[in-house]
């Protein structure tokens, strides 16, 4: 497979040919595009929501896509991040740390929870690990709902601070076009995360992840401390999911009903990585955009177009499960590798 024709031309020419560069350009410049669209088709205000969930995709990319551990409880870590952020910043409790410290607390909480769950489970076989993470996801939601002295349960912890960059970002719902600032801020967060992950993936750590995924026995025989590598990947993935949760809670202004962080969310995360392409970082982002986009945008727009309907059969939200389930089954049958192929380079070798 000779790809030398892609290497021709100056760096700028090469960049222009790469679809990834175009995608990045479009999404950064989206505010300009969106404002030019008719009001009905505008989706800008929904984008920060999708971007927050892109962190879920990144987290699952590290755990499942790169290292091969089927993580069915990622929603729990999103919830932990959201609630950690909420508890540490809400006016209902005396801590009231502010946006950035709150974010730090959320990441710390996610990492700790990841270590906690990861220690016993990353030593297990793949299918057992899946069930253990599944159970964990259920337990965490249960706990968050029932420990309402701490979490206020379904009433949610509200009044959360907005991001502060020298000046506080305006409320996304009440101020028109406020979403643009959120959009760029969240894009910046994702850019940082992607840069860090890209470096990790092309280093000895990324190689260890892939080796563990491809052939655990050979990886161990080659000196890779498999349990430690799995735990590291799991913890990193949990931290990423928790970041997404914190950003989501901040966007929403409250911690959101714990039952929203259910198994469906975890499977959505898995679907993002599977659809986008297992092992490919860009693929995970593509999957996040597509599935997050489908979930948030299409459902929102479809209900608006089709109108409020009494018929259970015409209400699209009643078919969500089927659409997801069918997508998973068909993907696994016909294109398990996903849309974007995994692209490996050892840095510096070209």
């Amino acid at each position: 497979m000779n790809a030398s024709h892609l290497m021709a031309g100056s760096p700028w020419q090469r960049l222009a040919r790469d679809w990834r560069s175009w995608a990045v350009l479009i999404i950064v410049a989206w505010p300009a595009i969106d404002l030019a669209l008719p009001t009905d088709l505008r989706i800008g205000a929904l984008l920060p929501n999708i971007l927050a969930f892109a962190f879920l995709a990144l987290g699952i990319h590290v755990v499942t896509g790169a290292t091969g551990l089927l993580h069915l409880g990622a929603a729990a870590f999103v919830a932990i991040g959201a609630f950690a952020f909420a508890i540490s910043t809400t006016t209902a409790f005396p801590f009231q740390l502010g946006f950035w410290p709150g974010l730090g607390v959320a990441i710390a909480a996610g990492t700790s929870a990841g270590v906690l769950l990861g220690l016993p489970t990353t030593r297990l076989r793949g299918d057992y690990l899946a069930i253990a993470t599944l159970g964990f996801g259920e337990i965490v939601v249960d706990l968050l709902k029932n420990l309402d002295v701490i979490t206020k349960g379904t009433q949610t912890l509200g009044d959360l601070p907005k991001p502060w960059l020298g000046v506080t970002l305006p409320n996304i719902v009440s101020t028109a076009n406020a979403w643009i600032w959120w959009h760029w801020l969240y894009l910046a967060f994702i850019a940082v995360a992607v840069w860090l992950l890209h470096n990790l993936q092309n280093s000895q750590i990324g190689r260890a992840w892939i080796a563990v995924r491809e052939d655990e026995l050979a990886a161990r025989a080659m000196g890779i401390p498999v349990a430690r590598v799995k735990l590291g990947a799991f913890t990193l993935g949990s931290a990423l999911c928790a970041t997404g949760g914190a950003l989501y809670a901040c966007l929403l202004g409250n911690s959101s009903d714990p039952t929203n962080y259910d198994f469906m969310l975890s499977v959505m995360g898995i679907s993002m990585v599977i659809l986008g392409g297992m092992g490919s970082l860009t693929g995970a982002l593509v999957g996040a955009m597509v599935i997050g986009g489908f979930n948030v945008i299409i459902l929102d727009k479809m209900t608006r177009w089709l109108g409020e309907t009494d018929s259970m059969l015409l209400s699209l939200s009643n078919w969500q499960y089927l659409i997801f389930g069918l997508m998973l089954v068909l993907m696994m049958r016909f294109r398990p590798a996903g849309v974007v192929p995994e692209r490996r380079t050892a840095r510096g070798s070209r």
Partner: protein
Amino acid sequence: MTALLEVSELTLCFGGLTAVDAVSFTVEKGSITAVIGPNGAGKTSLFNVITAQYQASAGRILVEGATIERQWGRAETLRAGGFTLLAGLLTALALHCQSLWSAFLHDWNSLTKFAWGTGLTLAWEEFLRTGTWPFAIGAAVAAAACWQHWHSQRRTPDLVHRHGIARTFQNIRLFRRMSCLENILIPRDTRAGYGRLAAALRLPWQRQREAAEISAAMALLELVGLTAAAHLPAGSLPYGAQRHLEIARALSSKPRLLLLDEPAAGMNESESADLMRLIRGIRATGTTILLIEHDMQVVMGISDSIVVLDHGEKIAAGTPAEIRAHPAVIAAYLGETVEGQP
């Protein structure tokens, strides 16, 4: 000549089946020793025990006079102790989190300033009141888990690898979707450790180290003639090249002992001759080699000593000449020519 590897009374049982039965032999440093025997004799099982893939049921393996296993030291005690305490604390906190939380907040409302000292004291009192039993239970479970973990992790393949024993596999186990270069890099990575911060931020020393590793790996690829394929996926290589790559990968960590499991399988005469040259070259760098092989030409051609297994037992050991004439060996192979003549 000193013994690099000393195996004494090594036994491996799977339920009712004894795969390796009280096998003892030594491998001299810098030599090429071959393990031969009919199929099912326990040769690969022997390799698996040496590399800690399986745990021996009895017997001892000494590498340069020492056993390879994790030792319990101060670091382990600290880690286990810390983990136990933390687990107990977490269990206690978790089981009574609501009452502890209420005690901590002690009816705070947003109008008053929060008294941190009082909150902590109240929470601590509540903890002492309700948390001692959960703490004990959590700590006990954690201690048991530590003990169980320790026992299962005393000898592991990655530890054996880090102590300088590398191997290839009977059925090639390359990382097919990774490039040849990456396959070579992986065994070297373990020396650098898996510190994520430096790698994520691409700090200067990480970049330098990576560049040095890559050039060393490319040199190794040149040794086996695979420089052109450096960035191709390992799975796309032809069979013979894959075997060479696997050997290069095993050499990558500069092991003191190299275990080759049927390296000449599926090779024709010229390829076998190439392989023999390669193995002699590896010996010349100071690496000791232990190989399993069925191809008698290869075995007789390069071995300094041979160990013969049959049904898990060692039936003979000695120089190629001695083995060729050994009646038990001839009997075991039942008429197969062992002279290395076609």
